[in-house]
């Protein structure tokens, strides 16, 4: 199976979920985590990941901070806000109902 870009509309959910398990990740780590936990099936493209991160930051779901790494470079790490936790819950239940519906269609048809 070819590597697919994260499903349309589910990128936010993936990012929020990852950040809810492991706070304070930078962009590359989030991308890597999505790939790893999905068994290299799902991939977030850089071109869509960063605008999505900024959008969620503006919406107040996640919060960003510059930290200094051991290498001396700066990295921008993200973590979930209380607002984001609520959003995650909503997105998760939305995803559940959507995938349930799709499964039902696949079974019946």
């Amino acid at each position, binding site marked *: 199976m070819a590597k697919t870009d994260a499903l349309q509309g589910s990128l936010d959910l993936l990012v929020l979920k990852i950040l809810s398990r492991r706070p304070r990740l930078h962009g590359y*780590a989030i*991308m890597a985590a999505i790939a790893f936990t999905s068994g290299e099936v799902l991939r977030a493209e850089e*071109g869509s990941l*960063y605008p999505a991160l900024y959008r969620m930051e503006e*919406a107040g779901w996640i919060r960003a901070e510059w930290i200094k790494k051991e290498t001396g*470079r700066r990295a*921008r790490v993200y973590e979930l806000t209380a607002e984001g936790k609520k959003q995650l819950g909503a997105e998760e239940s939305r995803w559940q109902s959507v995938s349930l519906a799709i499964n039902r269609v696949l079974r019946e048809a």
Partner: protein
Amino acid sequence: MSVWSRISNAVRSERLNREIEEELQAHMEEAIASGRDPDEARRAFGSALRAREAGHSVRVAGWLESLLADVRFGWRQLCRNRVTSAAAVLSLALAIGACTSSFRLIDALVWRPLPIAHPERLYFLSRAGMGFDNKPGAWDSWAYPDFELLQAAARGKAQLIAVSYANRDDITYKTDLEMEKASVQHVSGNMFAAFGLQPAAGRLFSESDDHAPGAAPYAVLTYDYWTRRFARDPSVIGRTLHYDNGVYQIIGVSEKKFTGTEPGIVVDIFVPTMMDRGVTRQDRTWIRTLVLVEPGVSIESLRQMFEAIHGGFERQRLTGQTGLSPVTIQNVLRNNVRIEPAPAGISQMQKNYGRALAAIAFLVLLVLFIACANVANLMSARAAARTREMALRVSIGAGKGRLVRLVLAESVLLAVLSAAIGALFSWWSAPLVVGMINPKDNPARLILPADVRVLAFGLLLTIVVMLLFGLLPALRASSVNPAGALKTGETPVARQRLMRTMVGIQVAFCFLVVFVAGLFVASFELLSNKPTGFSADRLLLLETTSRAPQPTVYWDDVAEHLREMPGVERVSQSSWPLLKGIGWNDSISVNGGPPSIDLAYFLNVSPGWFETMKIPLLQGRDFRDSDAYPQAAVVNQTFARKFLHDEHPVGRFFEKASDDGTHQRMQVVGVVRDAYYSSILVMLPVVFVPMHSQEIAGVRDATFVVRTASSNPLALASTLRQEVTHVRAEFRVSNVRSQEELNQGQTIRERLLAMLAFFFGFVALLLAGIGLYGVLNYSVLQRRREIGIRMAIGSPRAGIVRLVTIDVCIMIALGACAGVALGLGAARSVESLFYEVNATDPIMILLPFTVVLSTACAAAIPALVRAVRIDPAEILRSE
């Protein structure tokens, strides 16, 4: 947080770009470090620029970013022509600041509601009709027994509150040596409760303080006075103060926001009305009647009730009064009672200065329009210079709205800068103007806060100003036709027409301002140069008082001592100085006839007073030490003419007829030349009577009139002040001033009006001149090529001059005519502020006309010189 962060990101857009760049770079390095192929990683990102843009647009408010770009661009435009921009900003700032100051003053004096529970329910009572002097008028002063009748009748429908006129009076806290001035007001005990005011300390008066005359010797301080005089010391409550022969206990401090009901006066000390000695007198009108109407009560029915009750009171009081002519009594009984809203309080200063300030505000508004017209023309000219740029922007796809915004941004910057400087100007100038109102020893005090009302006005004014000068040029600039503009670069005719119209309006307004200013200045000149009939030169006035009446020989004693002081030439006494503004009047009965309808005015003077005042004796003799009141009298010319018909006045007898029917017979011993008595506006018939009296044992107040040797009489003030108390310990000098100061006090309002009007007239001329210069100069620059060609084909210089000026001349002529028409209309509405000047006087019109025209000519000359100096060869070569 989101909107805010997007806005703040827009402001620091550069830094944001760097951060996004840095984050993406870090990502790439991370990817490479974890073993990805560098080329592949870079490819995955796509174009770095695109990624950055995508990130950027999410995090930034786009509209704001482009707006900021416009503002930056506008700022650079302003900086390109620093001198003209600065001139525009300064002229607008001056006009905006002056407008704001005018608003602050008028608002504080007339509009701002009192800080009380229900200002909208507050009214005041006045009477209108014929007065006791048989002249029509309106009066807001009432006798206390009359007030009590009204108050009782209105119970349930309205609360009536009596407040006296706040007075600057002598008070002492310890010994008489430490006498000081404070502004004292008598108020009803129910006032504080009715107004919903709380004490800041101690307690306030209550209705129980209104029960019996003299039974409530209490004082309430205002918060302002408590702060200034006692530094908010709470132990001041319980202390006593001496005022007007009584001892008052301080019981409390009123709420901070409340400074009395008279805008222009900040009261220091409140005392109950019941403590005034006149409280039982039916014939003494000394209080204002404020009415706090209960909701739902008809004002008109209230008024009718008050009128009926007041009529009954007057009828009862005047029945059997033989001192007044029957005509006078009839007239007075026919007076109407008026009830008018007074949400802002009621004061004499409103009456005296409300109109004057409105007139100045009007002039200032015109100056603002002139300044706006200037800036509008400036913006027009700049927009014209940018026609090609605008055309280019349109051709590469800029929308109309975007162009309007681009040009308006510059106007907004101008307006905001001007408003900021204007606010500073207003902060400085409004208190300055207040300081010029009233004499030095009793300054007017208006509360001038920078509150919401003032800020709202300033904001509104700034927006209006910006639209006035910015909108038209912006719309013009945006409606550019790219094809035509890119080809030729000529200014459209419509734009020049707009600029010329502005010149016309400027000239009209400028004429109006200069014309009205001229009338004010002429009024002041006439008034201040008016001969008073006496000489104020080197005269020092010692207004002296003593707690108990003192025999007149004691007063003579003091005068005698003062005469021996070095530097003193003459010393005389009178009850009060001339032109102090107070008077004593009564009817006159000649040859046993009925009391006169016209009143005569009286003043006690000592022998030698006429010589000290340099009022020449025309007939008869001066008083002697042996003369006493009421026997001998010296009258002025007006009296001799009016009451004695100029038939050998000396030696004749007349009677002074008081309201209560008592008559005092006097014989004229001398006639003096006319001199103004209480005001320089009217020459009154005056009877001078001796200080010595057969009737009264002593005198409490009198003024020593001292003619000093030195040209500055005030140099002797403190020495003489001490000397008075030194000679007789009971005497205290409550006020020292020069007669000159009193004379000037007569023309304070006129001086203020003349000064401000002159200043703004000058500013209007200057601005209109600059505006005209700018427009002509611009039009010469625009038509350089045409002028060059005309010259090359032999047009004479006169023709060139005509070409350049003809349109503008027509506009000036039209503007001037409109100005005259407007001026005559405006003058009529402020007529009451003029003194003996007539707006239709040809000189008063011709003079400003000449001034405006010569300014216009002066402003036109540089442009004309430039036009005729154009070198055709050079112009044609450059094409």
